[in-house]
């Protein structure tokens, strides 16, 4: 450890960045891809073509009718209505003890008035959940991601302290100088370019799981009664006691119209407690895409009469939390802003990657075999694993049982193989070979799509099928960028 404030910061920045960098790279990359989660899912289920969208009130009525088929014995229904990006309604059903299954889900296409029929895949949700769960049991992944996020915040702050000439650095890029200087310039430029984004996305990420990370205030103030806190903060309401008398549930469509008329923004989620019981409550939330603050507006209706029983529009701290949450998910963002979110995320991922490379370059000519191997395995390996996941999605037989889990297994197996390769091969060769392989895997994805679905670029571009065409074009661009990187490194 060195003396002096900036020297200490530089020292801590380097080491903390090294030990968390591999994990942060994976969190940033999978999180960035999650901004296009539904488009990725659409590409991974090419046989499902949603019918033209219908109005939300009709969609709610049809979802309700479907629930009366699959969830008559349920104590709670949850209906997430389709929006512009996710064309399926997501139905979930909970049952009391003694009824099986206790929890059940279904994807439903209200426009076709039928369940979604497509190959089994986790789709974009796989990357979305990996982003904060890391596929670990219980909450271990979430705790690890949270600790990494706080360290990321400290890394950003210490990085700013170290590179205090921040404005000047922004205009400094000297690739011709080569070696350490070029890597440092790239790291700084990427960091400074999207500095507000990096701070925002990291801090708001912590806010999304805040009750897991710091439950102590709630537990102390409410003496361990978290349900009471959630009710008071309008985050979740306890289910009403069943009256035990059957009563028909109100039609949901008119409730949607009334809620939307009050808010002036679209409704998104319908939570039905005790359906078909005299004590039924229908709680309607504004759509995630309706504004910055995530699920700020709620109205609860009596489930048998349709009378309003509660209105929640949020209080200041609650709205602040909801806005932070909404900022992180970016579901309010239209296509242009979404692209900016994506670019910011890629800049963050590249900043982490250049930082990890810089750690090695700084220590030349001394070799650091372990870090070299981990750099290749954690970064190039993950890029390959994601491509392998997409290939598996298209090459595994559509009717295969457990195919969703096999796709996930292909992801982890190819990541592990890449890590072994990265540890065995000479460092520069390992990078060139893995980036070269990744380039081929991504660039060929449009061909894989054309060979296995018929919704190829020539068709999707003409039809204006943007999820499909966008995925293919992004894969092609990724392949070309990776090929350029591999070629550049191969020249050394």
């Amino acid at each position, binding site marked *: *450890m060195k003396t002096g*404030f900036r020297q*200490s*910061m530089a*020292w*801590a920045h380097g080491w903390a960045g090294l030990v968390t960098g591999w994990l942060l790279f994976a969190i940033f990359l999978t999180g960035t891809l999650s901004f296009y989660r539904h488009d990725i899912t659409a590409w991974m289920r090419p046989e499902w073509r949603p019918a033209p969208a219908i109005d939300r009130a009709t969609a709610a009525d049809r979802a309700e009718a479907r629930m009366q088929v699959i969830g008559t014995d349920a104590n709670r229904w949850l209906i997430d209505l389709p929006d512009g990006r996710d064309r399926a309604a997501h139905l979930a059903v909970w049952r009391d003890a003694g009824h099986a299954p206790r929890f059940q889900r279904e994807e439903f296409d209200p426009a076709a008035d039928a369940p979604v029929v497509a190959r089994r895949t986790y789709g974009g949700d796989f990357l979305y959940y990996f982003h904060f769960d890391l596929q670990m049991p219980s909450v271990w992944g979430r705790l690890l991601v949270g*600790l990494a996020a*706080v*360290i990321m*915040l*400290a890394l950003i*702050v*210490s990085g700013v*302290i170290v590179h205090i000439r921040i404005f000047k650095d922004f205009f400094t890029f000297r690739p011709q100088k080569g070696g350490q200087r070029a890597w440092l310039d790239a790291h700084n430029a990427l960091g400074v370019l999207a500095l507000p984004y990096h701070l925002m996305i990291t*801090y708001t990420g*912590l*806010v999304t799981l*805040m*009750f897991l*990370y*710091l439950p*102590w*205030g*709630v537990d*102390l*103030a*409410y003496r361990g009664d978290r349900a009471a*806190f959630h009710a*008071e*903060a309008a985050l979740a309401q306890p289910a009403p006691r069943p009256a035990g008398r059957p009563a028909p549930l109100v039609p949901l469509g008119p409730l949607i119209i009334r809620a939307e008329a009050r808010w002036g923004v679209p409704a998104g989620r319908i939570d039905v407690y005790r359906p078909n019981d005299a004590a039924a409550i229908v709680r309607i939330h504004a759509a995630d895409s309706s504004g910055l603050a995530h699920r700020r507006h709620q109205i609860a209706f009596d489930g048998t009469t349709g009378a309003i029983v509660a209105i929640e529009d949020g*209080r*200041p*701290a*609650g709205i*602040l*939390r909801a806005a*932070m949450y909404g900022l992180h998910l970016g579901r309010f963002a239209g296509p242009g802003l979404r692209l900016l979110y994506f670019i910011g995320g890629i800049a963050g991922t590249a900043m982490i990657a250049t930082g990890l490379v810089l750690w090695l370059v700084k220590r030349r000519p001394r070799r650091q075999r372990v870090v070299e191997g981990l750099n290749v395995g954690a970064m190039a390996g993950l890029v390959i694993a994601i491509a392998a996941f997409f290939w598996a999605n298209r090459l595994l037989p559509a009717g295969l049982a457990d195919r969703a889990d096999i796709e996930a297994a292909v992801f982890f197996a190819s990541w592990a193989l890449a890590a072994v390769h990265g540890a065995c091969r000479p460092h520069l060769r390992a990078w060139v070979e893995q980036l070269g392989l990744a380039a081929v895997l991504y660039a060929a994805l449009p061909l894989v799509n054309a060979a296995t679905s018929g919704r190829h670029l020539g068709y999707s571009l003409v039809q204006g099928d943007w999820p499909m065409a966008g995925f293919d074009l992004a894969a092609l661009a990724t392949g070309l960028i990776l090929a350029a990187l591999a070629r550049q490194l191969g020249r050394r």
Partner: protein
Amino acid sequence: MKALAIASRVLAAVAGGYALAAAIAASAATALPGQKAEAALIGIMLGFVAYTGAMIWAFAARSAWRAWIGLMLPTGLLGLVAWIGTIA
């Protein structure tokens, strides 16, 4: 000795920083005026900021001892505030 000092700072950053964040969340929830749920939310959101600052402080302080003292003192005080808040 040097390695021990570094390990001590790392522990101060991770565990000491978390203790400070928890103390802020707890004291805000129990002692801030206004609705309890609102106070609890503010406490958590401030807690993350403090955790970040604590990590910086743990490596900026002149010695590992100072790092610990600088974290434990406010943590203890806020813990006291939280305790008074629960009995008041």
